[in-house]
């Protein structure tokens, strides 16, 4: 489903060039559960952002479902993000003035889906993350774990193919962290391709496949 060939991402900072990703090859099939690990600055987030079409490579190809993404324009990429990709961030990124239900509804609002159809899907997503009784709460009225559950509900409400999670438990205590991990693993068992960036060795070891990055290169790619 995902194929990356000879992909590099460079940043120019002043007259210095940072190779965040350096000639990477990677293939990911549907339904995989992958952890990406590596020291800080090794390029994990950069890789995830490119996989999520938030960022574009400076060199190389990223082929998603048979389509080379370098040929896509902004709108086409936005459409893929809307329909095929779900994001979960370390800092939740909920819109503070909207309720939990409205936050979850947001991707469908942007996609122009009718309010009647949205209502039903919000309900289903809320029950997936067991937050039906909190649908009217604002983010500030929710705990960190609950916020991340809202963010997960939001990321799956458009029924994407891939879930990209950048340190989803980074801001959580261990109990709610485990809850979140179980939640996304359940989604993976139901068929969703799951790619998680993490610093947590225990979390990394739970996955079927572990990719290690260092200085923008894949130094280890273990399928268990």
């Amino acid at each position: 489903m995902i194929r990356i060939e000879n992909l590099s991402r460079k940043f120019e900072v002043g007259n210095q060039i940072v190779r965040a990703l350096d000639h990477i090859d990677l293939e990911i099939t549907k339904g995989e559960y992958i952890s990406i690990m590596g020291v800080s600055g090794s390029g994990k987030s950069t890789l995830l952002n490119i996989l999520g079409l938030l960022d574009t490579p400076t060199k190389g190809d990223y082929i998603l479902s048979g389509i080379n993404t370098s040929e896509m324009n902004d709108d086409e990429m936005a459409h893929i993000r809307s329909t095929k990709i779900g994001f979960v961030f370390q800092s939740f990124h909920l819109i503070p003035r909207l309720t939990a239900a409205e936050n979850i509804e947001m991707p469908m609002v942007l996609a122009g889906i009718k309010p009647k159809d949205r209502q039903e899907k919000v309900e289903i997503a809320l029950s997936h993350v067991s937050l039906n009784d909190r649908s009217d709460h604002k983010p500030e009225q929710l705990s960190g774990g609950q916020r991340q559950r809202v963010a997960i509900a939001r990321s799956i409400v458009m029924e994407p193919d891939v879930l990209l999670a950048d340190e989803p438990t980074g801001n959580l205590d261990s109990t709610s962290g485990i809850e979140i991990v179980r939640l996304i693993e359940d989604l993976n068992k139901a068929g969703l391709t799951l790619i998680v960036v993490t610093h947590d060795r225990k979390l990394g070891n739970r996955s079927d496949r572990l990719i290690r990055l260092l200085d923008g290169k894949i130094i280890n790619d273990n399928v268990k």
Partner: protein
Amino acid sequence: MRFYDLIFLALSTLIRYPLRTIMLLVATSIGVMAVILLTAVGEGARDYITGEFRDMGTNLIIVIPGKNETSGGGSPVDLAGVTPRDLTIEDAISLRKIDGVKNIAPIVIGETSAQFNGLERNVPIIGSTQSFLSVRKWEMETGMFLPGSTLERSPPVCVIGKEVEKELFGGSNAIGQWLRLGDRRCRVTGIIGTEGRAVGIDVQKLVVVPVSLATALFNRPSLFRIAVEAENRLVGDQIIKDMKKILKKRHRGKEDFTVIRQDAVMASFDNIFNVLTMALGSIASISLFVAGILIMNVMLVAVSQRQSEIGLLKAIGAKNKQINQLFITEAILLSGSGAILGLILGHSITQVLKISFPTFNFLPPLWASYVSLIVALMSGVIFGLLPARRASKLDPVIALSGNK
């Protein structure tokens, strides 16, 4: 994105930052209010000056003492002050023999005390003839106006406004009663029904007497002006020529008076005041653009404050166009509701002013409301464009890591 979702999202941000929203609303509403108020003053001034002429018949020619040096297009109000040689009742009488003249109404104005039954008031006086009624298109409430042929004679009669009747006669019937005016007496023959103003005076506060009674009362033979009603518009120019000839002869060959056609004056006044009102409106519109620039600045700040939200929206599938729309909608909502608030304020204050200054008619023209609303909305769009563009062009990765 659906229209109501767009409105809902934009509204939710405006509500989220109430202080900022209120500030921008106030700025825009002040601009719109300024347009309404200034144009109301302009239109009011036009109404004040031309109103008096407007009520009169259309085939009216007016003779004013004094000559405008530049000739033509001058204001009769200015001219009334300089009187090289007075117009007299005899001048008015001499105009009667001109062909095509239907009515002649010489006019004297002044003020004197009016007394009845121990009650005393200072009242404005107009001295004229029966023709005055038809020249001014007045209507009587009860009784009769001045009798005919009062040019030479001065029968001791008078007609009073409703307010004079109320103040001096209380509830009792004024008609047939003797009213004391200065050192004269007159019998009240009628009550004026018309409301409004004549030569700047509230009709309901007036006492109208035969012109020769007025000249005797004020001990002054000069007329304020002579109003001549032509049989129809077409004869107007010929009448003016004849009038000038006759009056010039009577004034020892000097044209020390001004003859104007009422319709021509009306037209030029209308033009002058239209330009004035529009100028006032445009000046006030500048404040709308100032408000627009304020909106732009605040929105630019908002874009950098809401970077992470913009990044998130992009991550969950927002197209650049949608981010653009969202910010433009916010700007339009701000300027639009500010404009509506300004319209409400402007019109309410106009009403208050009308009550506080009843002598001046504040008339906000309809176009001012439309124009200020449109200008406000346009400035919202124009000044919203830059921030909206900046927001939509943000790099999602950088935006996501930006401040919350």
